[in-house]
C-alpha cells in the first residue's frame, strides 16, 4: 500500500492555511476516502460536508487541484501522483475548512416562479405526456445541486454578481420549468430582469464541471436566451405581437383523442 500527501485548506472566514497530511491510499480510492481517513486519524475536527458518497446528493463539492469536483467521484488514480490540493468552493462564504454556506442558492431559487400545470387532460385528474417531451426536461432534472457550476461561473465567482444573476444551476432549474410539458407559466420577464440571464456570456465552464454531464449552456441557457431575445429584442416579432389575432387563454395543449403530439411549448 502506497501513501499520498494531501494539502487541505484549514480555516474559517477569518483566515487559514493549507495543512499537509500524508495517508495510505489503496486501489479505487476517491478523494473523499482520503479526507475521511485523515479526519479519523489525524484531524478529528476537520470540517467536511458529505452524505451519500455515491455522487447523488451533491454535498461534497470542493476544489481539487484547482478544479471544482465532487470529492466522492474523484478517483485518486486519475490525479497526478504529486501532492493533491483540496480546498473549499470559492464562490460561497466559508464556514470552516472544506464547508461553505450554499444557502444563497435556495434564496435565489425563490426568484423563479413555481410550476403551474395546465388543467388535467383526463377526467380522473391525470395528464398525458410523450416520453420524448419528458426526456428533454429529465436532462435538467437530474441536477444534484452540487453547485459546482455556480462555483466555477465567473459572473458569480469573480464579479460577485450574486444579487443580479442566479447562475447556471438556477437557469437549468428555470429551463426545466419552462420546457416542462405541462407548465403554463411565463418566466421570460424575470429571466431577463431578476435572474439576469444576460450576464451569461457562454464560456461554458459550467458545462465542463457538471458531474451529471448536463449540457448546461447548450441545452438550457442558450434556448432560454433565445426565448428572451425573441420576446424582448426582436423588432419584427414585437410588431407581430401588436397585430396578431388574439388566441384566447393559455390552455393551448389539448391531447387529441387519436394519440399524442409533442407539446408545442416543449418543442421550441
Amino acid at each position, binding site marked *: 500500500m502506497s501513501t499520498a500527501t494531501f494539502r487541505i485548506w484549514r480555516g474559517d472566514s477569518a483566515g487559514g492555511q493549507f495543512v499537509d497530511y500524508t495517508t495510505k491510499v489503496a486501489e479505487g480510492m476517491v478523494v473523499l476516502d482520503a479526507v475521511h481517513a485523515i479526519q479519523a486519524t489525524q484531524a478529528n*475536527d476537520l470540517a467536511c460536508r458529505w*452524505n451519500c458518497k*455515491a455522487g447523488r446528493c451533491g454535498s461534497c463539492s470542493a476544489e481539487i487541484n484547482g478544479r471544482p469536483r465532487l470529492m466522492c467521484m474523484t478517483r485518486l488514480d486519475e490525479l497526478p501522483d504529486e501532492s493533491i490540493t483540496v480546498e473549499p468552493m470559492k464562490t460561497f462564504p466559508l464556514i470552516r475548512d472544506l464547508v461553505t454556506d450554499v444557502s444563497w442558492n435556495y434564496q435565489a431559487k425563490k426568484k423563479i416562479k413555481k410550476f403551474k400545470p395546465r388543467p388535467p387532460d383526463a377526467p380522473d385528474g*391525470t395528464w398525458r405526456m410523450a416520453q420524448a417531451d419528458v426526456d428533454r426536461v429529465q436532462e435538467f432534472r437530474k*441536477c444534484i445541486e452540487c453547485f459546482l457550476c455556480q462555483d466555477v461561473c465567473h459572473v458569480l465567482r469573480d464579479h460577485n454578481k450574486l444579487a443580479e444573476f442566479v447562475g447556471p444551476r438556477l437557469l437549468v432549474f428555470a429551463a426545466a420549468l419552462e420546457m416542462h410539458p405541462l*407548465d403554463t407559466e411565463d418566466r421570460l420577464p424575470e429571466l431577463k430582469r431578476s435572474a439576469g440571464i444576460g450576464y451569461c456570456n457562454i464560456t461554458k465552464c459550467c458545462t465542463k464541471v457538471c458531474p451529471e454531464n448536463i449540457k448546461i449552456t447548450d441545452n438550457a441557457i442558450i434556448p432560454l436566451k433565445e426565448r428572451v431575445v425573441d420576446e424582448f429584442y426582436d423588432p419584427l416579432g414585437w410588431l407581430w405581437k401588436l397585430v396578431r389575432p388574439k388566441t384566447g387563454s393559455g390552455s393551448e395543449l389539448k391531447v387529441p383523442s387519436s394519440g399524442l403530439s409533442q407539446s408545442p411549448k416543449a418543442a421550441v
Partner: protein
Amino acid sequence: MAEGGVAAALANVDDRDNWRVHFADTMRGGQYVNDWRMAELHAKEAPDRVRELEAWGAVFDRTPDGRILQRNFGGHRYPRLAHVGDRTGLEMIRTLQDHGIHQGIQVHMEHTIVTLLKDGERVSGAFGYDRERGRFKLFRAKAVVLATGGIGRAYKITSNSWEYTADGQSLAYNAGAELMDMEFVQFHPTGMIWPPSVMGILVTEGVRGEGGILLNKNGERFMFSSIPENYRAQTADNPEEGWRYTQGDKNAKRPPELLTRDHVSRCIMNEVKAGRGSPHGGVFLDIAWIKEKLPNAAEHIKKKLPSMYHQFMQLANLDITKEPMEVGPTTHYIMGGVRVNSETQMASVPGLFAAGEVAAGLHGSNRLGGNSLSDLLVFGKRAGEFAAKFAKEHNAGVIDQTQIEEAAGEALAPFDRTPGANGSSEGPYQVQYDLQEMMQNLVGIVRYQREMEQALKELAKFQERCRKVVVHGHREYNSGWHTALDLQHLLTVSEAITRAAIERKESRGGHFRDDYPNKDAAEGKFNIVVHRAGDGSMQIRREPIPEMPEYLKQIIEEMK
C-alpha cells in the same frame, strides 16, 4: 439511494393491478407480521400520492399512451413502480423541495436534535444545535414529527448515507416511546463490493427488473435452484419465461432474481460460502447479456439505468453494457422503528409522530422494493396532517429548563474530558468503526444465539468507551463532535436490534437465525416491542398482532 421507483397500484401498465393486490403483496413480502391496517392504507392511498407529485411537477417516465410508466420489482405481482430512470428518489426530493420553497415553510438546515423535551407524558419541543456554529437551539413545539430515516451506519457495509445514524429511533426511545420489529433489518442483495472504497453502494434492483441475472463464478444462474414454496406458483419455470416477464409479457411469471430481498441475499451468501463466489467475495450481476435479445442493448441499458452505468464507469472502471458487475449484500433498511398508531402515525408518546423508515409496521419482517417511497409519501402526509390536528387541539406544553441543561451538559461532555491517565484519548471514529464491524459480524445477515449474546457484552464495553470519547477543537462544524454524539444513538439502536433478535426464535424475512432456520407459526403471532424502563434499562415485550378483519383475510386468501 432510492433508485428503483415508488410502488403504487395505478394499473397503467397492467390493468389487473389494484390496491388489493398491492396489499396482498406487501403482506406476503412482510411474512404477515405487518400492521395490516397500515398495509391497507398504504396500498389504497399510494396512487393518489404519486399523482399529487405529478401535479407538483415531478416528471415520471411515460407509457406509449402518455401515462405514468410502471416497472417490475421484486415481490410485486404486476409492474407497479412509477419511476424516473434509476433516480426516482432524487426526482421526489427535488419536487418536494421546489414545491416546498413556495409554501412559506421555515427550514432549519443542518441542525441536529440531541433530545426531545417532555411535559409530563407529552412532547413539548426539541433541543439541538446548528452544525455551522454549534450553537444550541430550543424548538418549542406542540407536536413533533420524526422523519430521520434508518440505522445503516450501525453496520460496516451499508448503502445508507451519512445521516442514517439511528437518531430518530433513539430520540423516541429516550423520550419513552416504544420501538417495534427492531430485529428486522434488510440486507439488500446487490451492493457494490469492488473496489473496497465503494463497498456497500447500492446497485438498484431495477437492474434485475430490466432483465439482469445473477450468476456464480461457474456461470450458473443459481437463483433457479432455490425458489421458496410460497412463491413457486408466481415464479418463472425457465430463463426464457423470466426474460419475457421483464419485457412486459403479462402471461409470463417473474424470474427468481426478483424474489424478495431477504431470500436473494441469503442465496448469494450461500453461493459465496460454498466457494462459488466471484473473486472479491460476491456474485455476478449481468445485464450485458441482454445483447443476445435486443439489437441496441448498450443504448437501452444506458437509457434505463443511467446512474448505474455512470456509477460503475466512474467508480469501478467497468462498463455494465459489456461486463457483469460484482455484487454482494449490503445493509439497506430497517423494517422496525418507532411503534405508531396505524391511522395517525402517533407514537406511544402523545404529540410525537413518526413517518417513513423511522416508523415501524407497514413492512413487517421484509420490505418490498418500491414500498419505501410510497410509505413515506402516504404516511408522511398522514403524520403531517395528524400532527397539525394535534397541535391545533392542544396548548403548548411547558418547557422544563432542567431537561435542557442536562441535555446541553451531556452534549458538551466530550469537549470537557481530559485524556486518560495513561495518555490515551480515544476519538469517536475508531469507536464507530469498531461498532460497525462488531454489528456486521455478530448481528448481521445470519444470526446465532451465542454471537448475539456476545454482541450484548461487546455493547456494554462500547458504552464504556463511548463515555470516555474525547473531542478536539471547538463547536463550529466539528465533524468529530457530531460523530461522538451519533455514537450514543447507534449504541442504543444496536442494543435494541440485538435484544429483539435474541427474543425472536425463528427465521422470518430479514431476520435469519442459523439455530432456528425455519418460520414458526407461533412466533408469527407477535411483534417484539422494545421500551425503556423506569431504571433506564432496555425491556423487551411480546405484543400479540391484532386479528385481521375478515375482508382483508379474504384478499390474502384470494391472492395466494
